[in-house]
């Protein structure tokens, strides 16, 4: 396989990863890394570098749309980015000292956990009558969002717990080259009781800022190979765009289940690769 064939195939795989990632809600980075490692036999560090660049691209594209909707909460996003960026810098430094096989193992485990997280039921708890959390007051986190003509108010709960979870999400992002959106949303909607829509929209804004904190370190360590980054970033961006346009039109329940099973198998494969078992 020469460079042209390689880049074209990688671009096609990346469009696919971006599309699937947005349909199942895991993000393109989570899907493209194992594809690059398993099917293209690329070193996981190059794969992580290219994936993290694609994560920034999709976050900027998707975040722009959400910002205009007035759903995402800038203050919550910036406040929690303090946690995720600290974690991301730590994670990226950790990635530099761990062997590729360990990264592969951790990636597989995190992939499976993300799949499980995406299956949980989503129901918002009304927090508008709760007493305000002192830190939420201090950082003006409580707000409201428009939903089908109504305005829904929310009060952010359990701020320290959410902040800690965000440090973990940041570490995973920097360690594995992923957006770790599933963990960010977990911190916001499960721990801090922020409505699901606000959580996902704010997470999209945060993902790019988090990724930028570790991608600079990746760049300095030489993980960003331009010849690999450009087909991956462009491909995932196109795929995510198509996914976002398709998502409201198609019934995704079965499709989502099929893809989640496929992604789980890939996760198991990454774990096996990390432990040195060849299939």
């Amino acid at each position, binding site marked *: 396989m020469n460079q042209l064939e390689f880049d074209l195939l990688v671009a096609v795989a990346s469009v696919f990863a971006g599309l699937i990632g947005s349909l199942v809600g895991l993000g393109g980075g989570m899907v493209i890394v194992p594809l690059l490692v398993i099917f293209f036999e690329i*070193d996981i560090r190059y794969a992580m570098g290219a994936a993290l660049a694609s994560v*920034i691209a999709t976050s900027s594209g998707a975040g722009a749309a959400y*910002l205009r909707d007035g759903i995402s909460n*800038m203050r919550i996003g910036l406040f929690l980015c303090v946690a995720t960026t600290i974690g991301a810098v730590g994670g990226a430094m950790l990635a530099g000292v761990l062997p590729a096989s360990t990264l592969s193992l951790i990636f597989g485990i995190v992939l499976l956990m993300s799949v499980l997280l995406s299956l949980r039921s989503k129901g918002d708890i009304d927090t508008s009558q709760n007493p305000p959390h002192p830190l939420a007051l201090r950082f003006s986190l409580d707000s409201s969002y428009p939903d089908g003509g109504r305005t829904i108010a929310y009060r952010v709960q359990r701020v320290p717990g959410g902040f800690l979870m965000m440090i973990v999400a940041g570490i995973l992002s920097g360690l594995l080259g992923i957006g770790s959106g599933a963990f960010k949303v977990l911190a916001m909607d499960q721990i801090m009781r922020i409505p699901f829509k606000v959580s996902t929209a704010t997470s999209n804004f945060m993902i790019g*800022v988090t990724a930028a904190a570790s991608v600079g370190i990746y760049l300095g360590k*030489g993980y*960003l*190979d331009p010849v690999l980054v450009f087909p991956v970033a462009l491909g995932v961006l196109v795929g995510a765009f198509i996914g976002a346009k398709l998502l409201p039109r198609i019934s995704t329940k079965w499709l989502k289940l099929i893809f989640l099973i496929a992604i789980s198998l890939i996760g198991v494969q990454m774990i096996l690769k990390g432990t040195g078992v060849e299939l």
Partner: protein
Amino acid sequence: MKASTNSTEGLLAKVMLWGVLLSAIIMLGGGAVFLFHHGGDPTSDHVFKGEPRDLRSPLAIVRSAFTWNNQSIIQLGVLLLLVNPLLRVILALISFGRKGDPTYIAVSLFLVAILTYSLFA
């Protein structure tokens, strides 16, 4: 408060979108020229070696892109992508500065510092 928040978010949204489009165009152009010249070369990403110094720091990337090195031009597009979130937090800093919100001036300053450190240190 609502109106100024919306205009900041509108500006942020524009920066995010146009930044991504511009970097996509540079990556696509640089990539096409690279593949035109090197499309027949063998691939090399199976073993990790790390990229050469020219492609590893923002200043070196900009400098070598001016020599019309194909890979450096793609990397310039990548770099533009990476600074997009930094622009986002700088814009947030400016908007909270205008509102006179000391808490969020501090939060944004911290984020500007940590992203700058990561990218340039």
